[in-house]
């Protein structure tokens, strides 16, 4: 372990949390404008977190206290770890070589799992229903998500994210496989709101049905940790999509020959812009233009429709590669 790695492992999570909250702010603002409202200032999520951290943390009487308190930390830790696997523009991922796409898949699952366990541990009927729904939803969207990752493994013969990021996927596949990759992209876009518990798949936290579900009993610091992990997860998910499907660097498009700091800065900003576009498309626009599905409807959508799209994409890649 070099000093550089240690620096990265501190700086990346901090940067990730900051960016996650900024993106959440932008998301809220754009969503408000889409519905003819003014919306909160972009720094509102920071205030929210600050306020939550100041508030009293209440543990319900019939909750399993240690489990109830541990799960927010687990969710936050796994989302921070997730950040360390994402190559940031042309920067290499800090944990490069220690894990790959499969680890990312499990880290994403771990957060949902932590929320579900926290919900079960809080001993409220609303949380239990929410946690049950989250488990069902997780089982439904894991399959398309895994299919996408297998598709990439087929193309690159590797699970490493840095390898994938260094060569754009579109440049090494045949036209037929490229269409398959497009289908995988569509499948991943549909999974994104479910993974992030956003409308139309925020079934586990349905406000009007079960009063925020899994989060119903959480307050204060615990809720702040869930809030932060949610923000980070949103950023990370969009970043993964960019890395998988749009890894083009700005210098390669424009034919620039930048070096040193300028290269890093320009590429980082370009990367953030790409992430923002994906975030707005996959999260903001979708969550504003749909209502909430029922859990059985959502399951059917993932098991039948999205799965079909993803498997078709996989088959095309298999034939095309």
């Amino acid at each position, binding site marked *: 372990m070099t000093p550089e790695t240690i620096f990265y492992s501190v700086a990346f999570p901090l940067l990730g949390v900051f960016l996650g909250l900024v993106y959440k702010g932008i998301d809220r603002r754009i969503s408000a404008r*889409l519905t003819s*409202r003014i919306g909160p200032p972009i720094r509102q999520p920071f205030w929210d977190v600050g306020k939550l951290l100041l508030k009293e943390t209440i543990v319900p009487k019939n909750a399993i206290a240690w489990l109830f308190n541990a799960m927010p930390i687990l969710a936050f830790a796994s989302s921070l770890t997730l950040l360390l696997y994402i190559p940031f523009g042309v920067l290499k991922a800090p944990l490069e070589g220690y894990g790959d796409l499969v680890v990312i898949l499990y880290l994403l699952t771990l957060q949902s799992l932590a929320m579900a366990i926290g919900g079960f541990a809080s001993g409220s009927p609303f949380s239990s*229903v929410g946690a049950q729904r989250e488990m069902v939803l997780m089982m439904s969207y894991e399959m398309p998500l895994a299919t996408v990752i297998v598709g990439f493994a087929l193309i690159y013969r590797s699970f490493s994210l840095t390898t994938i990021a260094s060569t754009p996927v579109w440049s090494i596949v045949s036209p037929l496989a490229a269409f398959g990759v497009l289908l995988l992209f569509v499948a991943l876009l549909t999974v994104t709101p479910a993974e992030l518990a956003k409308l139309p798949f925020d079934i586990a936290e349905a406000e*009007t049905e*079960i009063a925020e579900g899994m989060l119903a009993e959480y307050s204060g610091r615990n809720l702040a940790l869930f809030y932060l992990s949610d923000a980070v997860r949103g950023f990370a998910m969009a970043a993964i999509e960019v890395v998988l499907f749009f890894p083009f660097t700005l210098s390669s498009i424009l034919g620039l020959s930048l070096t040193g700091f300028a290269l890093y800065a320009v590429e980082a900003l370009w990367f953030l812009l790409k992430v923002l576009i994906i975030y707005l498309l996959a999260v903001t626009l979708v969550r504003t233009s749909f209502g909430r599905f*029922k*859990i*059985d409807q959502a399951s059917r959508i993932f098991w039948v429709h999205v799965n079909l799209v993803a498997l078709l994409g996989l088959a095309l890649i298999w034939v095309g590669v």
Partner: protein
Amino acid sequence: MAKSTYYIPVGPIHPALKEPIRVEAEVEGEKIVKVDVKRGFAHRGIEYMGMKRNAIQTLYLSERICGICSISHPYAFVITAEKALGIEAPPRAQYIRTIIAELERIHSHILWLGVIAHEMGFDTLLFWTWKGREKVLDLLEFITGNRINYSMYMIGGARRDLKEKHIRAIKDAIDYYWKFTEHMKEIFLSDPVYKARTRNVAKVSKDIALKLNLVGPIARAAGIRMDVRQDMPYDAYADIDVRAVVPQDIVGEVYGDAYDVTMVRIYEIEQSLDIIEYCVDNLPEGKILAIPNYVALLAKIRRTKGEAIGAHEAPRGEVIHYLKFDGRDGPSVWKVIAPSYNNINSWGPLLIGAEVADIPIVVAYIDPCMCCNDRVAVVKTKDGNELGYTEIRKKCLEKTEKIRRELK
């Protein structure tokens, strides 16, 4: 065997409810196996208050029964009082009252469309429909002086006249709402998520609707042609041939579910626009109050004895008022029956076998108004015991007997 069911309390405070009521659901997984509806959280004793005041005061008290039906209760009240007292409102006032009532129907239906969208997490539609609703509220403020609680009616007429500028504003608003309703039809009735969440949810068959005595748009969505404006026309409705809006006339088939209710309500907005257009074009000239002097009116009420039952088709269904005048300047008996009272009865049968996710839709699809329907308080004896059902029933029978004896 392990306990496989657990119990979900919805209310009295819950995000799906706008007013306090309690739905206790026993849930097996996502499925509801047992349900109990408890009401009575918003009882204010308003009828008793009304029986202590004079009739003009009580009329304005009736406006405060419900915030959204703030013209429906006064309308039923003035119709009943006019019947009991033998006063007839001048034709112009009758037309003005109809216009205000129909404007209220438009805003109430649009409000419901927003609320039902919010219940399924569709906040975009909530913001959009309520944005469109602002226009009719502004119009009502322009005509009556306030956005809600219009204070427009008086026993034997209306208090404010429609001037040329008001009529121009109404015509403007009608043009706007023809377009807006067309737009709403497109958005609501074609949206895949909306359809997925409402089709076959809260499904009422014609039989059940008749058995449970459902009223208003809910009964009409189940295919029953009932509408107070059609069955017992009053005021300007007598000149207009109002026909109940039922889904079989619109699409040819009846499901009786929340989707059909949506359809019925949207088409009723168009019907209201038609009625307002007719009233504005055929507005008779003349005075607007039968007895302009309130002191004379109160004196007449003091002189007259009589009782009557009157009904008005509120946006939610029929509102029925009973009034009895016997020598006081106000009613000695005042009884209000609000539409939600009947419609809440449908929650129990509809929720059994439904999913937890359907609770907000089933709760909201009748547009419940708790403060309209809570008319009974829990009665306690002096030593703190609650009176049971049998005792309360016995007392009710005693009172009925007493009234019957008085009538003879």
